[in-house]
């Protein structure tokens, strides 16, 4: 069951954000086929409720650390579709100047500390960001997204313990989509109840229906409030599912089509559209209007990316060390 219904504006905003991610990802599929986007591409389709729900609980100056599956997080944190698209086109206008690509979206002004493509490697960094807030007495919360596959990594264990031991303001958001590439959770964890695992660090931990944006929002709000009030780190297991392959190269031999189809019945966008419409919070053509706006935004983004600039090759060795001739680059 979902939490209490939102008001109309908020409900529509949630739906819109999820739909925007979905359509963004749909566009990526096409652009990958057209070889406009290259490298590894990991889609968020099916998991939209997680990023959208969690981000409702965050302030603009709260930090976020993400993974290679970062488009959804980046979009909900306010990085423009155009900047992300340009990034994947390898253009200077990209949010990482084309240096990072799909897996490494960054926007430090928005406190978005990147897609990290080493599984679990973002967790220690998130702990450190929270430590900086703690030491500087800033009442901020750092959110760290990671997949359930990361739970097996040593860095998960070390980071959970450190955050709990030092009571740092971190929200650990485990996106449990049941698979790490082709490895089902039960083949990866002796204890598959991830909230129980998290609780063994003396950390409050809840399992949440990650296909229900309202449930996610409400859990995240609860956790973030508690953290901001000095309650130390919290852990959310967000039970979700990816509808597409792990990345663009995945033959999906490890799961049945029927399993995917069953999960699609719980598509967070479809079900939430129904919820809103059922409650009279969205007009019959409300979705269509959103689709139009989003399509316009995305085609503008793609056009801009296409028209973007390739960085001159003689700039190759920039950004290895901070440039002393550009001191403004580094706000000390």
């Amino acid at each position, binding site marked *: 069951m979902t939490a209490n219904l939102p008001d109309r504006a908020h409900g529509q905003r949630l739906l819109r954000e999820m739909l925007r991610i979905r359509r963004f990802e749909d566009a990526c599929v096409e652009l990958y086929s057209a070889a406009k986007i*290259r*490298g*590894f591409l990991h889609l968020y389709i099916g998991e939209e409720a997680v990023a959208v729900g969690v981000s409702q609980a965050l302030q603009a100056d709260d930090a976020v650390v993400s993974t290679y599956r970062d488009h959804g997080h980046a979009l909900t944190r306010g990085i423009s579709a155009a900047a992300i698209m340009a*990034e994947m086109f*390898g*253009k200077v206008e990209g949010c*990482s100047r*084309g*240096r*990072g*690509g799909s*897996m*490494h979206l960054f926007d430090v002004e928005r406190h978005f500390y990147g897609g*990290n*493509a*080493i*599984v*679990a490697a973002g967790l220690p960094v998130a702990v450190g960001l929270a430590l900086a807030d703690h030491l500087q007495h800033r009442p901020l919360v750092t959110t760290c997204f990671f997949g359930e*596959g*990361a739970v*097996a*990594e*040593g*860095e998960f264990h070390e980071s959970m313990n450190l955050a709990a031991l030092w009571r740092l303001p971190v929200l650990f958001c485990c996106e449990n989509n049941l698979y*790490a*590439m*082709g*490895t089902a959770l039960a*083949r*990866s*964890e002796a204890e598959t109840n991830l909230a129980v695992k998290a609780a063994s660090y003396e950390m409050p931990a809840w399992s949440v229906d990650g296909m229900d944006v309202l449930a996610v929002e409400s859990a995240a709000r609860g956790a973030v409030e508690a953290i901001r009030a000095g309650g130390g780190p919290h852990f959310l297991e967000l039970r979700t599912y990816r509808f597409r392959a792990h990345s663009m190269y*995945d*033959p999906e*031999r*490890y799961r049945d089509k029927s399993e995917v189809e069953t999960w699609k019945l719980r598509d967070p966008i479809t079900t939430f559209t129904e919820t809103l419409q059922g409650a009279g919070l969205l007009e019959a053509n409300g979705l269509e209007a959103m689709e139009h706006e989003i399509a316009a935004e995305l085609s503008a983004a793609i056009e801009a990316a296409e028209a973007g600039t*390739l*960085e001159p*090759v003689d700039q*190759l*060795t920039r*950004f*290895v060390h901070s440039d002393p001739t550009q001191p403004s680059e580094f706000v000390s």
Partner: protein
Amino acid sequence: MRSAESSTAELSTAESSKAEGRTITYREAMREAMHDALTRDERVFLMGEDVGRYGGCFAVSMGLLEEFGPERIRDTPLSESAFVGAGIGAALGGMRPIVEIMTVNFSLLALDQIMNNAATLQHMSGGQCHVPLVIRMTTGAGRQLAAQHSHSLEGWYAHIPGIKVLTPATVTDARWMLWTALEDPDPVLIFEHGALYNEKGLLPDGIESVDIDKAAVRRVGGDVSIVTYGGSLGKAMQAAEELASEGVDAEVIDLRTLRPLDTATILASVTKTHRMVIVDEGWRSGSISAEISARVVEEAFYDLAAPVARVCTAEVPIPYARHMEEAALPQVPGIVAAARAVMAAPD
């Protein structure tokens, strides 16, 4: 049954032109090698992330689970340090594990096990422990995978005493090095360049083993020695062809094994050509190219007609954008230019 005498220039180059055989991909060659090893020796098993149900991140182990079952084709959790360490323990316990680390980029998480245990146990036990472990991993850049997924650290690993480092560059080596590695009583790391998996090559009939301690002369030439390995061999060969059209006859050496380095083959070549260009996808500073240069200077200083030249990866984390990535990596024109430069030096 014949063994590829890859150390002898004449033989190995002759081989590829004359021999009968099958054309297969590097990926298929690696898969055959694993299939073969699993069939030949029941102590052999494969473990790593997604080697089973997924079929391997790069489809190298596709089908092996179905044939050999989950006890011998073991999907692991994302726990690089533990499953590499478990490979070490299993080797101590009499098995012949093949541990696959999905890519070299994640191997850093297992470095403690590799350097402090695998490479060290024999020595600190005074010769009692032997770790007949093979660790395979994909290496290299060139596919726009950006900074965290594009490392070429095989030369860096070659710094560690107690391990061997193999870099199969050809279908034949992909097919046969694994078995020789498994027969080795000590830990062996095999680095497979990601750009090679789809490459096709002739797998000669009749060869049923290769050594893992000799470099191979892939092209005989008298003017300049181009020394390389792994994913850069193709570029070096292309550069040699281009140089040939300019009248420069380059010898191309495929190191095959970065540790121990086959210095003899390198020296034999440079004392003939007096000029050397090293092509190495590692970052320049502290790369294996530096070690080769230093050894050549130590052993053949008076034979050198020109400074040893290096064509390496620029000292930057690998950028995503295609044109930037290309600029960062060794490319054919750079190799040709370096060869021309050393040719221009006074004799």
